[in-house]
């Protein structure tokens, strides 16, 4: 794929903050997000999208949306096709906010705008379906807040056809984070020197030869097992994760740590908590994702590193996933809080696999060795001294950019474990 339209101009938001806008003037008056917007064309449809910063959201909507953890995403769809298209909001965020609901959430009374005013303004700003043939429609979709980097998944539906567009957007926030996020994104999109594998046996051998586990910064101590391999990228694997509620998180910084501490104390839902760095290939994770369950005590974490391998041309990411079952204080993490993980780390990898079966993006599932078994009665420890046990397998997930139905998912006949996924049955028949 090409990454045209990804060039980003660094815009500081400070100069744009000149008070609440009238909704209709918003795009002209606040061009920051428009200049950051990325575009892609598939067939006869062109989509542009950008995520708004906290300040931009407040300026466009005239109320501090971020205080209610709401973030607007701007989407334009230019439809040169001969059928109407619908933008599917749950693709951008399965828990998106309908404009009327967000207006109700922001109407505090107390001298602020009335519900009626907000309701009218929010609807006017909202993206309106469908996009008629030959027309261009622009508007905002209200999503759950993420800072730093946000994956934008634009699923368009028409009669018996669809287009899916994926963008990795950088959201301006604290300036240092913004710069870090930009570097981070560039790294994600850069094409490393790849070894492409088309032979399954050689590919399995290469996956099995990867290190068992993440390490600490100087590589002197092993941590959580590398129990996941994700094959695909911004156009296929990430959209599938987004559709199932996974969002990128940034690495630790002070403000976020403070918020996590207070979140851990107040038990509030807080969708955006930092996770600490773990190392592979001599560097921290390239991307960390999380799936919030209800509060900081229950969120699943996924870290991915881009390898120098590709499989049939698709990038290969190596990852680690664990299920949080609580948070606790520890002296083994520089942030002083860490998550108590489910010691059955295979459960977390299986759960992710099962969840992504429903993403309409998973094409194949396979298993390889490489982690090394750690039985229940002789568990290993991660870097924060949580014990874990494992069968020693890696879950390999292959993604496709075309929507895939549940009955098309292939189980690769790789590892044939006792407790593993599936073995190829002789004489395939549908049960």
């Amino acid at each position: 794929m090409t990454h045209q339209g990804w060039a980003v101009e660094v815009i500081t938001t400070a100069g744009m903050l000149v008070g609440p806008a009238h909704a209709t003037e918003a795009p002209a008056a606040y061009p920051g997000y428009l200049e950051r917007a990325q575009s892609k064309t598939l067939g006869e449809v062109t989509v542009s999208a950008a995520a708004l910063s906290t300040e931009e959201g407040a300026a466009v909507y005239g109320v501090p949306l971020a205080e209610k953890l709401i973030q607007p995403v701007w989407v334009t769809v230019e439809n040169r096709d001969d059928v109407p298209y619908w933008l599917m909001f749950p693709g951008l965020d399965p828990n998106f906010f309908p404009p009327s609901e967000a207006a109700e959430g922001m109407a505090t009374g107390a001298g602020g705008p009335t519900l009626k005013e907000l309701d009218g303004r929010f609807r006017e700003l909202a993206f309106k379906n469908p996009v008629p043939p030959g027309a261009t429609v622009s508007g905002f979709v209200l999503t759950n807040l993420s800072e730093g980097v946000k994956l934008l998944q634009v699923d368009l539906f028409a009669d018996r056809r669809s287009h899916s567009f994926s963008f990795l957007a950088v959201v301006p926030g604290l300036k240092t984070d913004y710069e870090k996020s930009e570097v981070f994104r560039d790294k994600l999109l850069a094409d490393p020197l790849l070894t492409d594998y088309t032979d399954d046996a050689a590919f399995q051998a290469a996956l099995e030869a990867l290190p068992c586990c993440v390490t600490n910064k100087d590589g002197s101590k092993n941590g959580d097992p590398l129990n996941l391999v994700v094959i695909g990228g911004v156009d296929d694997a990430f959209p599938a994760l987004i559709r199932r509620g996974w969002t990128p998180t940034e690495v630790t910084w002070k403000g976020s740590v403070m918020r996590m501490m207070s979140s851990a104390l107040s038990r509030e839902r807080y969708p955006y908590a930092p996770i600490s760095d773990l190392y592979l290939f001599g560097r921290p994770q390239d991307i960390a994702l999380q799936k919030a369950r209800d509060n900081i005590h229950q969120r699943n974490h996924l870290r991915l590193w881009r390898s120098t391998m590709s499989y049939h041309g698709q990038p290969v990411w190596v990852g680690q996933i664990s299920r949080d079952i609580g948070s606790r204080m520890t002296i083994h993490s520089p942030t002083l809080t860490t998550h108590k993980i489910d010691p059955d780390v295979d459960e977390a990898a299986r759960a992710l696999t099962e969840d992504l079966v429903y993403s309409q993006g998973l094409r194949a599932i396979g298993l390889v060795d490489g982690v090394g078994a750690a039985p229940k009665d002789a568990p290993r420890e991660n870097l924060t001294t949580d014990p874990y046990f494992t069968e020693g397998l890696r879950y390999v997930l292959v993604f496709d950019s075309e929507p895939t139905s549940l009955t098309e998912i292939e189980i690769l006949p790789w590892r044939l474990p006792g407790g593993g996924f599936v073995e190829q049955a002789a004489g395939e028949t549908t049960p």
Partner: protein
Amino acid sequence: MSGLLQRAGSAIRLAYVAGAMLLLGACATWQAPTDTSDAPLRARAITQQKGSVQVSAAVLGAQDSLRLFGTDVTAAGVQPVWIEVDNRSDHILWLLRTGTDPDYFSPLEVAWSAHVTFGGNTNERIDEQFSALAFPNPIPASGTASGIVFTNPQPVTKLVNVDLLGNRAMVPFTLLLPVPGDIAAGTAVIHRYSDAEIASYDDPDALRKAIEALPCCAASDEGAGGGGPINVVLIGALDDVAAAANRRGYRRAVEPPGTPQQLFGRPADFFVRKTAQAGAPAVWLRIWRAPINYLGEPVLVAQAGRPVGGRFSAGSADESRLNPDVDEVRNLVIQDFMYSGGLEQLAFASGVGAVPADQPRVMADGGGYYTDGRRAALFLVTRPLAFSDVELLDWEPVLPEKQADAGKE
């Protein structure tokens, strides 16, 4: 319960119970269960067969939990479900627990909530107990597997999806399971009509006419004044409708928000509410079986709405009032079903009658709503489909979403 807590749902209760146990310094009083036979569960299990695969399932109550786990996990907001898969096919199958509950709990997560302070070896034994009884994937070819999946609670008859994945194959089951302690136990979930009462159609145009001829709205219980609009029609086998809804986080709810409403001379057959631990849109549906069949499958009609305030005021007094923009919720329901894997066709029909925003239709309870007057008809099937497969039927033309004039004076 505050809105946040309500949204957070059972997991937060789990955390609270765990916390409370720690605070109370619960002593190492856990006793290993002595009788972990599944015979009582098997005795009341509901069984379904599809081809060479048979699935049985039963919901555990507090007593079952105490007997099997030595602790009552239902008090911590977890509803264990016992599932047995008898696989006589030559495929290895995999039970997809996220299909049963997108927010299910892992066995050791539930075990952790039952841990005792300074438990040491006791906590290890608790973990072992939960691991041993958990559902073991995969199910071997020509083999049987049984065990517990830990789900979020449903207080009334539980719709349980059991999606079994094989290589390029899926065998989905939907079971209606009684829930121990169900206050509505014994009542039929869906109203039953006699054959003579049901109008059967094989032709889509005839079906459309029948759908458009249905009443615009429910009636209030008192019979005076209207209820909410009937704006969603679900066509397909009940299993398929339930499976699609369940995959998108719609779960049965005990009672509807707002005032009771009637259609076909009776209250709604059941209610569902969209729920998710990470805060799902606050959508609910009142659902009635209509006296209509299409191609041999039942037609359900529904009133889709959401309470004023949505997620931001869950549990408050506002919650009983209908948000007036009912089309917004209808469209959200359509989009959810797009991702359910069960939607084959989509159509818009008339029948509700257009109501402009500046002259909302007032309901008996004082609330009101406005609408473009369209009813969404969703045709659901078993065969898992991607959203690129969905066919848009040429019924009523699609209307662009209006700029609301609610904000204009």
